[in-house]
């Protein structure tokens, strides 16, 4: 009996010891230890800095070019030298005497031939060839023009790859090149699945951006120096809030990267002094509880944000018009009450004109005083706290007048009446619901979108409708979200993007969220009309077998070649990075988990190092399922140190992070992701499901261990 008791006591003691030892092991992090074996199983985070990579690529091109002699008759041809535009090539050759070079890319017909001249008289030539057709042997001619008047022409054939199979489908509906504004049509995509591309007058693709992370859902701007500006490759939050802007040319060379910690979304514009005016966020957008309600000015030389106009201090964030922009999330921690989608300068008085589609409001403000000058928009909903805004509302005049609803892209038109007190403003009026409340909402099958010009009399505080196009097309072109309207200066035509046409079984619907979910088809239509309303160019954009998304966020008519963006020599200009990085702060409320719990899944769209900056773009799931709401944390663990950061979390498990690795002690760190998803659509309530998994990556810092 005694013996049995002893045995039982030993067993109990053994169990207790095992439990205690297990507890100690867990508490000491033994089970998540960054052991040598574990680290050896992980992949080192790759180093990639686009500016450094492009510069080394230029040197590689030159090294290959310099081995043999290349003249006009046998240029060294590099297709897509920067791996950004597969329909562009760079030709390198030398001539015995200085000459300028004329480039001609053969077209299907006379109007689609592309030609331009590099006027500098040079001996060494680096000639961009732009506007190649996809999947073809392109006929290209180079003509050298010498100073004595002589010329010499050589003909080349440049083969290009076919368009990717998931490229959106363009169908030409109308084209009258003689009446069109010159240039190519830049079709800017919104979703990361679609491609941003250049179309000619026949609706053929003549250039596209193969990188899907850049320039999506934000504008692309032709700068005064001939280069283009768009968002770059680093996200802050919901994937059109980017912390990087790139200045580039159509060969894909990035000259400058501007890091904007506030993040830029939707529109960017160049100010007359070269600085950028952009719609943005509060710098601490995750602490303020709101987003997309700040306009910033970025100093071009330093990349630093030199001015912030915070509309939470100007408008009223509690005003709640009826619209379809957001998914139904209760207690959302980051309210997008304004969704600012455009900001432009009125150079006559230095004020800014800012568009808020969710408020159906275009507001003019003095950037120095933050005083409202006027508000253009329907008059409903200005009660309670919003009553303070009522005095700024413009009064409509004239019989043919309709308000714009959920509008995009304000643009100031040339002065047509010579009256300094008036301002003609072009807008894309999406027309979503055409009502402040759900009760009066126009159903999508009876709705329409339009481009509209309003004349604003700032002295008399009135607004008059001067021109519109689109209403007569009815629901055919109805576009619940996205869109653009541009005045074209040579012809006075207007280029309009009916950008986000949500269609279910061919019928218009308003469910933006199901559109972005891909359960509803998103199509688009780009139309160029004369002032008299004659359609001179029209392209329909449709989905394909790989995607239900065929949206066009914005549209521009641009010159195919701008000399200013090609005035550099390979290997001499390394892209520069200016501005300020916005890094995550270490998490204070959460400690590193001591166990792995593998029901959480994680995948990465991007994970790279730019020196001491770690850039992460990932998504979490739970038991293979994506949840609308969730949070993600990055855990860095070495033998000696542990660091935890809360990522910037977006919807459906998406998360982003920039981590300053220079703050870490040297060592070899395994990276794991701790995350939680929440059942339902209530950010505060609903069952939480947690997990912690290895990311598959490690990062080695300093001398290592």
């Amino acid at each position, binding site marked *: 009996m005694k013996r049995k008791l002893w045995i039982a006591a030993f067993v109990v003691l053994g169990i207790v010891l095992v439990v205690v030892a297990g507890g100690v092991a867990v508490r000491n992090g033994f089970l998540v230890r960054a052991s040598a074996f574990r680290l050896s199983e992980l992949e080192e985070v790759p180093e990639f800095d686009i500016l450094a990579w492009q510069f080394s690529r230029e040197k*590689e*091109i030159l*090294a*290959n*070019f*310099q*081995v*043999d002699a*290349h003249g006009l008759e046998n240029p*060294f*041809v*590099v*297709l*897509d030298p920067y791996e950004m535009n*597969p329909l562009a090539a760079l030709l390198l050759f030398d001539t015995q005497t200085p000459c300028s070079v004329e480039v001609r890319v053969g077209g299907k017909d006379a109007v689609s031939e592309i030609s331009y001249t590099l006027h500098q008289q040079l001996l060494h030539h680096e000639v961009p060839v732009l506007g190649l057709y996809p*999947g073809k042997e392109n006929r290209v001619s180079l003509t050298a023009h010498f100073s004595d008047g002589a010329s010499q022409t050589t003909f080349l054939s440049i*083969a*290009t*790859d*076919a*368009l*990717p*199979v*998931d490229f959106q489908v363009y169908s030409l509906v109308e084209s009258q090149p003689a009446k069109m504004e010159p240039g190519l049509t830049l079709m800017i995509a*919104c*979703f*990361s*699945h679609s491609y941003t591309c250049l179309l000619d007058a026949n609706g053929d693709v003549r250039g596209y951006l193969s990188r*899907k992370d850049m320039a999506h*859902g934000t504008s692309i701007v032709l700068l005064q120096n001939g280069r283009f500006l768009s968002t770059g490759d680093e996200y802050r939050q*919901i*994937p*059109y809030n980017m912390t990087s802007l790139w200045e580039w040319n159509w060969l894909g060379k990035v000259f400058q990267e501007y890091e904007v910690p506030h993040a830029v979304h939707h529109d960017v514009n160049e100010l007359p002094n070269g600085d950028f005016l952009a719609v943005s966020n509060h710098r601490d957008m995750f602490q303020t509880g709101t987003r997309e309600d700040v306009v910033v000015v970025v100093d071009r030389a330093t990349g630093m944000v030199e001015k912030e106009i915070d509309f939470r201090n100007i408008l009223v964030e509690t005003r709640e018009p009826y619209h379809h922009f*957001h*998914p139904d999330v209760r207690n959302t921690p980051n309210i997008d009450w304004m969704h600012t989608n455009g900001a432009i300068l009125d150079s006559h008085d230095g004020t800014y004109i800012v568009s808020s589609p969710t408020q159906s409001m275009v507001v003019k403000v003095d950037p120095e005083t933050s005083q409202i000058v006027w508000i253009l928009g329907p008059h409903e909903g200005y009660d309670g706290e919003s009553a303070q805004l009522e005095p700024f509302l413009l009064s409509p005049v004239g019989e043919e007048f309709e308000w714009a609803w959920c509008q995009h892209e304000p643009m100031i038109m040339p002065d047509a009446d010579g009256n300094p007190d008036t301002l003609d403003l072009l807008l894309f009026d999406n027309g979503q619901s055409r009502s402040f409340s759900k009760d009066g909402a126009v159903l999508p099958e009876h709705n329409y979108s339009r481009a509209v010009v309003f004349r604003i009399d700032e002295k008399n505080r009135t607004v008059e409708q001067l021109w519109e196009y689109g209403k007569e097309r009815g629901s055919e072109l109805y576009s619940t*979200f996205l869109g653009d309207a541009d005045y074209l200066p040579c012809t006075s035509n207007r280029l309009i993007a009916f950008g986000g046409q949500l269609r279910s079984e061919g019928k218009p619907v308003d469910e*933006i*969220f199901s559109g*972005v*979910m*891909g359960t509803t088809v998103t199509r688009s239509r780009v139309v160029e009309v004369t002032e008299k309303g004659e359609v001179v160019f029209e392209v329909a954009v449709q989905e394909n*077998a*790989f*995607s*239900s*998304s065929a949206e066009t966020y914005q549209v521009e008519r641009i010159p195919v070649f701008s000399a200013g963006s090609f005035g550099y020599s390979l290997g001499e200009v390394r892209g520069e990075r200016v501005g300020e990085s916005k890094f995550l702060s270490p998490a204070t409320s959460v400690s590193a988990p001591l166990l792995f719990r593998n029901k959480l899944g994680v995948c990465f*769209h991007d994970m790279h190092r730019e020196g001491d900056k770690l850039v992460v773009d990932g*998504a979490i799931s739970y038991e293979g399922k*994506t949840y609308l709401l969730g949070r993600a944390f990055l855990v860095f663990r070495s033998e000696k140190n542990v660091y935890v950061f809360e990522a910037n979390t*977006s*919807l*459906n*498990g*998406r998360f982003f992070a920039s981590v300053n690795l220079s703050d870490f002690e040297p060592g070899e760190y395994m990276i794991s992701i701790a995350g939680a998803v929440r059942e339902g659509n209530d950010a505060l309530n609903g069952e939480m499901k947690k997990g912690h998994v290895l990311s598959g990556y490690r990062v080695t810092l300093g001398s290592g261990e």
Partner: protein
Amino acid sequence: MFKSKAWGRTTCLLFLLVFLWGCGSEDAEKKEGISSFFWDVHIERWETTPLLKSTQSSVQYNGVVQTVQHEQTPSEGMVFLLLDLVVEKKQAGASVFSWGDVFVEDSEGHRFSRHPNDSFLDSSDRQRMKGTSLNFGKNEGFVCFEIPEGSAKGSLRLVVLLEQQEHSLEIK
């Protein structure tokens, strides 16, 4: 005593055999390839398949991930031959690696060119080798050929014309 010595010898012999076998297998893993003055080409791996299923996920305007399923099938009676290639330029110069000079040859001498648009590979979780001529650097990725089912059952060779000389490599 005798028995334990025999066991010891046997154990040593087995150990030696395993060791030598291990060394041999390392040799066998060395990739055979094509080598010219400018280019090195080798096949990392290959497969034939009658169907490519792809799931394409894309992140939308507000962070939502959209997933689309797609199937890519070859013409009737054909299969896809997928080669995971490494094409590396080892010497600077104007030499260009052109896909028009790359073929798969079956046992009867029939030659097949690269699929004219195999960009569907990208959406089937395979990194695709770009379809335009290669100028420099180390280039890695899959290329796709459509070959008859019968050819796929026999021996196949990768044929590459480099610097006006034909090189070939058995696909095995």
